[in-house]
């Protein structure tokens, strides 16, 4: 149940066996079925979710009802609305499972307590936030400077697992493209091969 979590932690910091056992007591194990939501737009995000199995997406919806995907998260990743989670404000995002998923949920209080009790966990969280910030900068840069084809190719290089598991119209939404544009781009790439 904690295999991916400890793999993720041990890639960044070392925990003792006792610390790992203590760590387990702070996480809420939760199964989500495909299309079930973890967070609904307008609610306060009370969990930071680690994905042991499955895939989730977070998205916002505009006035016309169009979905805009801001993040996908697969095994070994975390997903939350950080702003809502840390400030107790209402979320503008919905987080939904794209496959049957197994999560480990951490509440704000549990996160704080865990960081107090295990200083290495605080370091782990800091490194995660650092990496998330770098990834966000890269995403903004990609959105501002890359062509549609470059965006799609680079996504496939960086996150092949996501491109293979997620429907193409969702990939298009994540890249800020219309589905027909992505379809054209994919055809062009295939024709050149």
């Amino acid at each position, binding site marked *: 149940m904690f295999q991916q979590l400890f793999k993720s932690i041990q890639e960044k910091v070392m925990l003792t066996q006792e610390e790992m056992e203590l760590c387990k007591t702070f996480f809420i194990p939760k199964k989500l079925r495909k299309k079930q939501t973890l967070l*609904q737009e307008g609610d306060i995000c009370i969990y930071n979710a680690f994905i042991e199995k499955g895939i989730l997406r977070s998205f916002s919806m505009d006035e016309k009802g169009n979905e805009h995907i801001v993040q996908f998260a697969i095994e070994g990743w975390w997903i939350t609305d950080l702003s809502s989670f840390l400030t107790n404000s209402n979320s503008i995002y919905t987080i939904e499972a794209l496959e049957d998923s197994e999560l480990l949920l951490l509440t704000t209080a549990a996160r704080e307590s865990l960081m107090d009790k295990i200083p290495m966990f605080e370091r782990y969280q800091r490194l995660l936030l650092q990496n998330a910030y770098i990834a966000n900068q890269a995403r903004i840069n990609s959105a501002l400077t890359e062509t549609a084809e470059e965006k799609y190719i680079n996504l496939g290089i960086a996150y092949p697992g996501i491109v293979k598991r997620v429907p193409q119209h969702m990939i298009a939404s994540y890249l800020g493209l219309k589905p027909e544009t992505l379809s054209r781009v994919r055809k062009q790439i295939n024709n050149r091969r």
Partner: protein
Amino acid sequence: MSNRRTFAVLGVSETKSIFLAKQIAKTNPVLLFDHDAVVVNEVHAQILLEYPKANAEMMICPTNASWEADIIILSNATGTDDNFIKKIRKVATGKIVVVLVNEKNTINFESTLDKLHHLFPFSKVVQSFESMDEVENSVLLKGNDEETLKTIWTLFTSIGLKASIAQT
């Protein structure tokens, strides 16, 4: 977070748990389990007959039901059976566990709240006693966590039970 919390009702074969399952299923997903498959079938059919839009599902595994649930309700022997509790303890971490106490399981029910806390060391345990004052649908709630007690009191009151919280 999503307000549609999922409930697991385990040991769904006595009056109070059937009532809870029916009422909760009107608004929230409910996962039903009992060792007696025939009974679960009957309860499930009964719920859907009375509330065709109810979100109730039969489960064959209590661990999976509890894993999927946000709140776990234990009824009949499930609240006193150590082997059964071992099956769900790991997936109950951080969740609310409500143990229904009634005449059927009171005879051998030596579990104090302390024992239940020992069995579910990382869960928020609430005991729900059928009231002795013979007021219909009245229950007495006992637990160590005030916020959890309020959550269950709100839930029970909203579905028509006359719930009160025991003074400690």
